[in-house]
C-alpha cells in the first residue's frame, strides 16, 4: 500500500525536439513572457514608509503596552505572573502599595519594565496576565540607535497605542513619514484604507 503513494519526479531527457526548442530559445521566451507579463500588471508592493503602511491583524504580537480601565485606572496589579511566564526574563516588576485609586487594586506596579532587546514576542506575558493589563500591541517599528531605548518603562508603556485594540486590522492604510527629534515615525491614518491586489 505504501508503495502506491510514491511518485517518481519527471526528468526530461534531451531529445531532438528539445534541441530544436533550444535553438529557437523557447526556454528563455517562456521565462521572459512571465516577467514581461508582470511588468504590465499592477504592482503588489506597498509604498512603505512614505505613503502606505500595513496595519496587522488583531492577534499580532508587537510592542508591549499597559492598559487602563474605562476610568483611567491602571489595570496592572503587579502580580508578577508575566515575570514568571516569560521565557527570557525580560520583564521586571516591582510592586508597591497605593490606595489613592491609581490602580484597580491597592497594589500597583512601582516599576514595570520590559527589555525589548531580549523579548521573544511570544505573547506568554499577555496569556499570563489576569487583568488584560499587558498586551502586545500592533506597533512594530522598534528599531533604535541605543540599547537603553529598547528598555521600555511603565510611563512609556501606559501611553495609548497607535492602533486601538478593537481595530479590525489586516489592511493597508495611508501613512505619513514623520521626522522628529527622537527618530523617524510612520504615522498611519487608520480611516484611509488603500486597496491592493
Amino acid at each position, binding site marked *: 500500500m505504501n508503495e502506491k503513494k510514491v511518485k517518481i519526479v519527471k526528468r526530461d531527457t534531451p531529445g531532438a525536439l528539445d534541441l530544436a526548442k533550444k535553438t529557437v530559445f523557447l526556454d528563455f521566451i517562456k521565462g521572459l513572457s512571465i516577467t514581461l507579463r508582470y511588468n504590465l500588471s499592477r504592482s503588489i508592493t506597498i509604498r512603505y514608509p512614505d505613503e502606505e503602511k500595513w496595519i496587522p491583524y488583531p492577534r499580532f504580537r508587537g510592542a508591549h503596552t499597559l492598559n487602563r480601565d474605562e476610568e483611567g485606572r491602571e489595570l496592572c496589579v503587579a502580580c508578577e505572573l508575566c515575570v514568571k511566564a516569560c521565557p527570557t526574563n525580560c520583564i521586571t516588576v516591582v510592586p508597591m502599595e497605593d490606595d489613592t485609586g491609581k490602580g484597580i487594586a491597592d497594589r500597583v506596579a512601582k516599576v514595570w519594565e520590559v527589555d525589548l532587546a531580549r523579548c521573544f514576542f*511570544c505573547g506568554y506575558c499577555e496569556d499570563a496576565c489576569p487583568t488584560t493589563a499587558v498586551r502586545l500591541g500592533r506597533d512594530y517599528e522598534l528599531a533604535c540607535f541605543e540599547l537603553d531605548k529598547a528598555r521600555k518603562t511603565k510611563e512609556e508603556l501606559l501611553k495609548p497605542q497607535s492602533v486601538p485594540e478593537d481595530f479590525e486590522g489586516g489592511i493597508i492604510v495611508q501613512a505619513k513619514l514623520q521626522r522628529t527629534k527622537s527618530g523617524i515615525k510612520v504615522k498611519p491614518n487608520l480611516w484611509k484604507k488603500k486597496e491592493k491586489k
Partner: protein
Amino acid sequence: MVDNRDINGDEEAVTTKELTLSFGPQHPASHGVLHLVLDLQGEKVLRADPDIGYLHRGTEKLAENLLYPQFVPYTDRLDYMCAMSNNLGYVLAVEKLLGIEVPERAKYLRVIAAELSRLAGHLVCIGAWGVDLGAMTVLLYAFREREMILDLFEMLCGGRMTLTYMRIGGVRWDATDLFKEKCAELCRVMPGRIDEYERLLTGNRIWIKRNKNVGVISAEDAIDLGLSGPNLRGSGVSWDLRRDEPYLVYDRLDFEIPVGQVGDCFDRYLVRIEEMRQSVRIIEQCLRDMPDGPFVVDMPEIVPPPKQDVYKNMEALIHHFKYVSHSFKVPKGEVYHAIEAPKGELGYYIVSDGSERPFRLKIRVPSFVNLQSTDHMSRGEYLADVVAVISSLDPVFGECDK
C-alpha cells in the same frame, strides 16, 4: 617532495598548488553563517569541510532551565524559515511523554500549520537557490507567495516568523473563518504560481546546466550519511515519516511522496517543487475535513482555563495562577519523537526526571546531519558547483548550530 600531478593523476607542465579557500561565514551564497573550508586544485574541489557553530546559542542547555511550555518559543529559533514544524516536533514529543491525545480539530489545525510552513520553507529554498545560481527573478516571485503565507500566520497566531502557535495539548488560537477563506484562496492560486516557477527554472538551460548531474549522491551513500527529507528522496529513497510513521492525521490524508532517480541537485529541486504541490493538496483536504470542536485538550493541569473565565471566575483565576507559576509535572521517562520537517527528520529526545523541567533535551536537527554530505557531494566538482550543492541541501543555521 612537490606533487606535480593534477586531480586526475596526470603529470602537468604547469603545476598548480593546492589552495585552501574559506567560503563564508559572510558569503552571500552560504545560506547564513556557513563557513566552508575548501581545498582546491585549480577549480576543482578536493575536500569540503563545513565549519559550523557561528550561531550556537546552547538551545539544548537552555531547555534544562525552562518549564516545558516555556521552551516552545525557543524552538521557533531553530529553523526560522518554517517555525511551525519545530513547534510541532517539540509539543508532540512532550505529549508522547505525557501520554495525551489532542482533539481532532487541533490535529487538523496543526497539520495545516505545518504544511503551510513547509510551503514557506521550500519557497525560500527555491528562491534562494535561484539567486545563488544567478536567477534573481524567482526569489521575488517566491517571496510574494511566502508573504501570503506569512499573512496567514499573522492572522492565525500573531507572529510572522517566530510563531509559537503550538502549545502542549493543542494550539494557542482557533482558526477564524477569514483564515480558512484565505487559506483556501492560497490553495487555489498556489498551483498556478508553482507552474510559474517551473516555467522560469525547470526548462531553463542555465538552470539545467548548473544542476543536472551536479552533486550526485547515490541512495546507499545518502542512507549511510544519514540524509533525510527531500535530499534523501532526491536520491530515490522513498522515506517520508508522514507516511511511514504517521503522526496526527497524515494516515488519513491522500498525498504522494515524490522521489528522484539520479540524486543530483536537479532531482532535489524537482522533489521540492512536487512536495509543494502535495502540501497544497494536504491543506485542501484538511480544510475540507476539519471538524468543529475544542482545539485544546480538556485536561485542567495541562491547559489552563480560557481567559474569559479567568477575568470572571475566582476558581479559574486561582487555577490560572497555579498554572502560570508552577506549570505541570511531566512523568519520569525518556521519549523520542520525530516528524517530517521541511528539511528532513526533526526529532526531539527528552529525558524527564519527573519535574516541570526537562532533565535533558536533545534535538536531532536535519540541517546538521544533511550538511555532512557536502564533502561527499562536492568532491571533484567545480568550485561554482559547491554553491549549487549547498543550496540544494538547504541548510538553515539557526537549526544546524542550535
